[in-house]
């Protein structure tokens, strides 16, 4: 019975039926369903959403909508979780928009997708200087550093950030992925990043490949 309920939850959420999903979660929570199970179902739904995105059945608005539903579910369920239950993460990712660039929409979607995929993400925000990336890499010890940038000026800022990581002796400890408006393989070579991704799901796949999970 419970498994069936969860299947229903996964389907409703993956189909982006916001009202129906939230209503069902409230009902499940009231009935005393294990909150962890609800969250697991929601994560399975997010995985389905990600797969549909890869197959080009879903697009950015669908990711954003799924994110809102996830937020709604978390608000209901997280207070019910026992301490420590929600903290098991797959690995650390440091992310930020590089110096001179203040765009955040793309980066925020990547951060959110990594977060719901179970990674421990530290988002440094926008217009992040190379030295901050270096400091935080030292402190936070991420496995992956994600550099975001929408403008062409970001090419040089990304390059400077990679050079700064090299000079600090940190480059070998992390994989660097880049993404944003004008980014292609030409830019990846110029920046000396390990990979570029064209969207949020690509970023998740890169982290899976590098960190596992």
């Amino acid at each position, binding site marked *: 019975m419970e498994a069936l309920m969860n299947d229903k939850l996964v389907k409703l959420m993956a189909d982006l039926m916001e009202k129906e999903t939230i209503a069902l979660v409230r009902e499940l929570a009231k009935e005393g369903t294990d909150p962890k199970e609800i969250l697991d179902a929601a994560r399975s739904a997010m995985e389905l959403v990600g797969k549909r995105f890869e197959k080009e059945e879903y697009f950015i*608005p669908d990711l954003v909508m799924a994110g809102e539903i996830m937020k709604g579910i978390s608000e209901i369920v997280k207070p019910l979780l026992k301490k420590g239950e929600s903290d098991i993460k797959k690995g650390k990712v440091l992310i930020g928009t590089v110096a001179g660039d203040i765009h955040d929409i793309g980066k925020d979607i990547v951060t959110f997708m990594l977060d719901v995929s179970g990674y421990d993400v530290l988002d440094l925000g926008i217009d992040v200087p190379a030295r901050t990336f270096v400091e935080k890499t030292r402190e936070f010890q991420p496995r992956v550093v994600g550099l975001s940038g929408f403008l062409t000026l970001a090419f040089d800022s990304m390059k400077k950030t990679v050079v700064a990581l090299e000079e600090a002796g940190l480059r070998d400890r992390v994989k660097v992925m880049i993404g944003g408006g004008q980014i292609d393989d030409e830019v990846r070579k*110029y920046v000396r990043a390990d990979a570029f991704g064209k969207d949020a799901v690509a970023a998740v796949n890169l982290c899976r490949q590098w960190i596992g999970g």
Partner: protein
Amino acid sequence: MIMKEDAAELYRQREKRVNDAIALRVPDRIPVVVLFSFFSARYAGVSLKEVMYEPEKLMEAQLKTLREFQPDMDQNPYGTRFLGPILETLDFKLLRWPGHGLGPNVPYQFVEGEYMKPEEYDHFLSDPSDFMMRRYWPRVCGSLMGLEKLGAIHNIITYYMGFPFGFAPFSLPEVVEALEAIKKAGQESLKIATWSRKYTEKAKEEGFPMQVGAFTQAPFDTLGDFFRGTKGLMLDMYRRPDQVVKACEKLLPFMFEIALGATKASGNPRVFIPLHKGLDGFMSLEQFKRFYWPTLRGLMVSLINEGCNPCPFWEGNCFSRLPIIKDIPAGKACYAFEATDMVKAKEILEDTVCIRGNVPLSLLIAGSLEDVRVYCKKLIDVCGRGGGFIMDSATGLDDAKPENVKAMFEFTREYGVY
């Protein structure tokens, strides 16, 4: 310095070259144009801040760039660059620019937000001007915050309805302050218009026509960029789809008016329409057909009916949209593409619309001269077939390497002859 008669002849040739391409006739050679954006400031060695605040320096920088690159047409930079003083006056929140929140050599960047709340659709739909003056302006312009205190103008009607009490808020100090800011913005606005006119004349004297005489947007983009924000509007497509459609329909006549007014004032029928939120990935094809395309098409067809040439710039990749956006009168519009597959674009749009653009900025910044030539050759070979193609970079030049840009211009002028 070129002779006056030569300049007039060049002007005529260039105008004809571009118009031939738009009309799907074969021009003498492939036209080459770009949006210089902040490239001209860098090229002329002045800071980006300087061109945003000092109209003389903007004039010098842009003319120098024009003379040395010899594009077939130029884009008047005043309405999109000489913005420092007016934006300061208004304390505008939607942009950070060099000298105001950004370093002197960082190009301006848009600060998105939800400046219309989801529950405000009804207010916007019933009286957009009232919503804008009393709710939107105070949120996007710090100097106009006082206007929040005003009552609705449509209630101030006559000597016993509105006049006796309705004008009282206009005497409040914060409202007076806002009205003062509007007056000052009016003066700054006039300066921009004067310089802009001067620039168009000056460029004409040297033989360069302007690419466009007006600027407008797709209604959906206007709603998303300025009122609801990208995220807000994406969610609205699920949560309140009918209001989104109605708001786009409400904005359509405004977007049309803005463009038509400017084409009449400038005498230039070409209308630039940068597109932001309808590209592949940003919404499904079904959403594109429901929310984005109907009012954009409506805008373009209305403009064509008035004798204008809509010149939308399709940002990103719009491959899946090609069969749909083909549905407009033939030989009247020009579609610039950033990252759409140009081979497919040519194949599908060939008999309907002139295409333009696509030389990647990554090549113009990080590629070799030969890379640039190879790319341009491919574009000319495929897209140049039978006319209907204009060479251009994928997007505004900003940080491109001058020698790479020169390679694009020179190669097109040599190899692009029909």
